[in-house]
C-alpha cells in the first residue's frame, strides 16, 4: 500500500513537471521575435492579408492560453502532437519517430560503453590510488574532458575516414536499411567514440573519488582482514555504496543525450532529435519544438524516476528511510 502511494505520488509529480516544462517552452518560443508566418510566407509576410489568413488557418490568432489548451488536450486525449507546418506538414509524431532511432542508438551505445569502460577503470584507479597508473588515467581523463567534441570529431574523421579509410566520414545508416547492421555500426562508430570519450572521463573520475572514500571505511578493512580477494572486495563490497554519484549523473546524462548532441549531429549529418529541435526553433515551428521538448521532458522525468527507484534498491538506507 505504501509503495503504491509512493509511486502514485511520484507519477503525479512527474506529470506536473512535464506540464510546467511544456507550458514554459510554449511561452518562451512565442516570445521570440519572428514567427511561423514569416518562415512560411517569406517576403509575402509584409502583406497583412496573407498573414491574417495564414494565422487564422493555423489557429495562431487565438489567445495564447487557448492555443496551449488546444494543444495539450489534443496530446492527452488523442496523442496528437500537431503538425510541423514549417517542415512540409509532417505530423510531429512522425518527425520524432524518424529522428528517435538515431538519437536513441547513440545514447544507449554511448552510455553502455562508457559504463563498461569506466567502472573497471575506476576500480583499478581507486585501488591503485596515486600510483603512476592512476595518475596517468586521471590525466588522461582530464585531457579528454578538455577536448571539445567537434575538435575530436574532426580528428577522428581525419584519421579513420580520410587516412585509414576504415569508417565513413558521416551519415547514419539505419539497421533496417539495405546495408544492415554492419553499415549501421560503422556509421555510428565515430560519433559514439566522441560521446564515449567525454562520458567515460567523467564517470571514471566520479566513481574513482567515491571508491577511494569508500575504501577507507572500516568494513573494507574488515573484509581485507578476512582475506577476501581484492577483486571480490572491489566488486561486491566497495562498488555498491560508491555508485550513487555515478548513478545520478548517469541518469541526468540520459536526459541530455535524448535531446541529442547537436554538434555531433550537425557534423556527422545524423538525423537526430537535437538538430530537429534547433532547426525547428530557427523556423519558429512551434508544434515541432513543443513535441521535442515534451519528449525530452518525459524521458528525463522517467529516467530520473527510475534512478530514484534504483537508489532504493541499491541503498538499504534509502529503503529504510522510505519505510518510516
Amino acid at each position: 500500500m505504501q509503495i503504491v502511494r509512493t509511486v502514485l505520488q511520484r507519477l503525479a509529480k512527474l506529470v506536473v513537471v512535464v506540464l510546467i516544462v511544456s507550458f514554459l517552452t510554449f511561452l518562451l518560443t512565442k516570445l521570440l521575435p519572428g514567427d511561423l508566418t514569416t518562415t512560411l510566407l517569406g517576403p509575402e509576410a509584409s502583406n497583412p492579408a496573407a498573414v491574417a489568413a495564414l494565422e487564422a488557418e493555423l489557429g495562431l490568432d487565438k489567445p495564447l492560453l487557448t492555443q496551449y489548451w488546444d494543444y495539450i488536450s489534443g496530446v492527452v486525449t488523442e496523442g496528437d502532437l500537431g503538425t510541423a507546418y514549417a517542415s512540409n506538414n509532417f505530423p510531429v509524431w512522425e518527425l520524432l519517430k524518424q529522428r528517435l532511432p538515431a538519437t536513441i542508438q547513440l545514447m544507449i551505445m554511448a552510455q553502455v560503453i562508457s559504463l563498461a569502460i569506466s567502472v573497471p577503470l575506476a576500480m583499478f584507479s581507486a585501488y591503485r590510488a596515486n600510483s603512476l597508473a592512476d595518475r596517468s588515467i586521471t590525466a588522461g581523463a582530464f585531457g579528454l574532458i578538455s577536448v571539445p567534441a567537434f575538435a575530436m570529431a574532426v580528428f577522428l574523421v581525419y584519421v579513420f575516414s580520410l587516412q585509414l579509410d576504415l569508417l565513413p566520414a558521416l551519415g547514419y545508416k539505419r539497421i533496417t536499411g539495405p546495408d544492415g547492421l554492419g553499415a549501421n555500426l560503422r556509421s555510428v562508430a565515430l560519433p559514439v567514440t566522441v560521446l564515449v570519450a567525454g562520458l567515460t572521463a567523467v564517470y571514471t573520475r566520479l566513481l574513482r573519488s567515491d571508491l577511494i572514500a569508500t575504501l577507507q571505511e572500516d568494513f573494507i578493512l574488515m573484509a581485507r582482514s578476512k582475506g577476501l580477494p581484492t577483486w571480490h572486495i572491489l566488486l561486491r563490497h566497495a562498488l555498491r555504496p560508491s555508485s550513487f554519484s555515478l548513478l545520478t549523473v548517469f541518469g541526468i546524462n540520459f536526459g541530455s543525450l535524448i535531446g541529442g548532441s547537436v554538434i555531433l549531429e550537425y557534423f556527422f549529418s545524423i538525423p537526430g532529435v537535437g538538430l530537429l529541435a534547433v532547426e525547428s526553433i530557427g523556423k519558429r515551428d512551434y508544434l515541432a519544438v513543443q513535441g521535442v521538448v515534451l519528449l525530452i521532458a518525459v524521458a528525463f522525468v522517467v529516467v530520473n524516476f527510475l534512478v530514484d527507484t534504483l537508489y532504493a534498491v541499491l541503498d538499504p538506507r534509502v529503503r529504510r528511510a522510505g519505510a518510516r
Partner: protein
Amino acid sequence: MKETQVRSRWYRLLAVMLGLVLVAAACGGDDDDTASGDDGGSDDSGQETTTTTEEPEGTPVKGGELVFATESDVATIDAGKAAQPSDKVISLGIFDTLTTYVDGEIVPYLAESLEGSEDLTTWTMTLREGVTFHDGTPLNADAVVKHFQRMVDPAYACPCAGSVEIIGSMDTPDGPEGLTVVFTLTGPSVSFPDLLAGSSGYIESPTAVAQLGDQFAQRPVGTGPFKLTEFTPGERVVLEAYEGYWQTDENGIQLPYLDKLTVVPIPDSGQRVAALRTGDIDIFQTADSATVATAEEQGFAAQKISGSSSTIILLNNDKPPFDDVKARQALAYAINKDVINERVYDGVRVPSYSGFALDSPYYNPDAGTPQYDPEKAEELVEELGGLDFTLVCIPTPEADGILQLVKQMGEQVGMNITLETQEQGAYVNRIFSKSGDYEAACFRSSHFIEPDAIRPGLTTDDPGNLVFYSNDEVDQLLEEARQTADVEERKEKYFRVQEITGEEVPLITSLYDLFGNVYNPDKVGPPPPGEPNSLGAIKPGFLYAAGG
C-alpha cells in the same frame, strides 16, 4: 495599374534571398575553411561572371546512380515554394517549369508555345501533347489552371502569391482536357514568361493534390524526369527515373540519364569535401567559395556559377542617418570591395556595382555607382558632421568577416559603426516584415536574366522594397520598361535607372556570389549549366554518371 502587378518578381527574388540567408546560416560554423586561407585565388575562377557556364562536354551515358549532397536539409520542394538551391536540385527533378532559359533566352519548356498579345496583357499557352504526371494523370489545361489557383489560395500560403496574382483570369478554349490556356493579366507585362521559369511554373498533378491535400508537400508529384520515392527529412531524398518522361536529348536518349539520384544534406562544409574523398557522395553543391577552392586543390572538378546573386547592404532610406543621400554615398565610397574579396573570399569573387549581372545586356558599366574613394568618403562624413549607425547581420563567419572589414573601413574615414548580429529567424522577420527597424543590414539579392526583377525592390511603397526607397522617375521608368518587348527601349530605361540609383545609392552591392557544384570527375560527367532562375541549381535530369 494595380499594386498587385508591381509585386511581380521581387517576391521570388526575396524568397530566394530568404533561401540564401538560410543557406548562409546553415553553412556557417566552419572556421577551418575561411581561416585556413590556403593559397589565394590563383585560378581564373574569379573571372567567371556568367550566370551559366559553358555547355557540358563529354557524351552523356544512360544509366547509373549518383549521390548529391546539399548544404542544408530540404525546406520545401512544393510548387511555388521551393526557393533554396538545396531544394531546387530536387524540385527541378520532380517538376518541369512551363518555360526555361536556354543560352540566356527564355523558351517554352513544359509548354509547347507561349505567345503574348501586342499589348502584353493576353498570353496564349499551348501545352505539349502526351505528357503525363508520375501518377499517370495527363497534363492538360485543367492541371495548369488548378495549379495557378492553388498558388494564390491563401490556405496554401505561397510566398509566390504576390507575383502570381498578376494573372487576372484564365480561359481554356479547348476545354479542361485540351492543351490550350489563355491568360489574361491584370496589366501588361513582358516578364510573364519569366515568372513561369521559376517554381511558380512547376505544374503539379491535380489528382495527387486532391488526394493528398496538406500531405502533398511530402510526396509531390510532377511531370519531371524523376519520381520521388523517398523523403526522410534530415536524412535523404531519393529520386528514381520516371520511365514515362517526355523529353529526349538531341541524340534521342530518353531523359533522365540517371536511374537514381539520392540527395543528402551535409551541413558542415569540411565534411562535404571529406565525403567526396571517401566516396560517400559523388557531387555537392555549395555557396562557399573557400570549399570550392579546397576541393579543387584535392583534385576534384568544380563547375562555378557566378553572377546569379550578390551580397548587399540594405540601407534604410526612410530614417536617419541614411535618409540623407550623402550618408549613403559616404558609406559606398568608404567600402573597398577588392579588400573584402581578398580577405574573406581569397580573391575568388567579383565585386559588384549593379543590380544586374555583368553579362546582362542591361548592365550599365557607366552608371556612376561609387567606387572605392576614401577621400571622398571622408569629405562627405565631414559635411555630415559625422556618421554613426548600426550594421546588423546574421552570425556566420562570412558575415563576421565582412562586418569587421566594413567597420574598419568606416572608421578610417571618420564613421562610427556599431555591429550587431541577430539570429536568422528573427532577423529575417525584421527585414521582411518591413518594420523599418534597422539602419544598415546585410542581405542577398538575386540577379535574374529578366530585368523587370529589380522593379519591386526599387518601386515606392512596394512590399518588396526593403530599403524604403522612393523616386518618381525610377518608378515610372521601371513601369514603362516592363510594358514593352523592345529590347533597345528597355535597355535605355534600365540604363537610366542605374544612373539614378548610382547617384542615389539606395543600397550597396558588394560581391557577386559564387556557387559551385563540386564533383568527382571519375564518377560524374560535367553537370549541365546552372538554371538562371534557380540560383544556379542544375536540372538533375541532365546529370549523368561518368562512363566506364
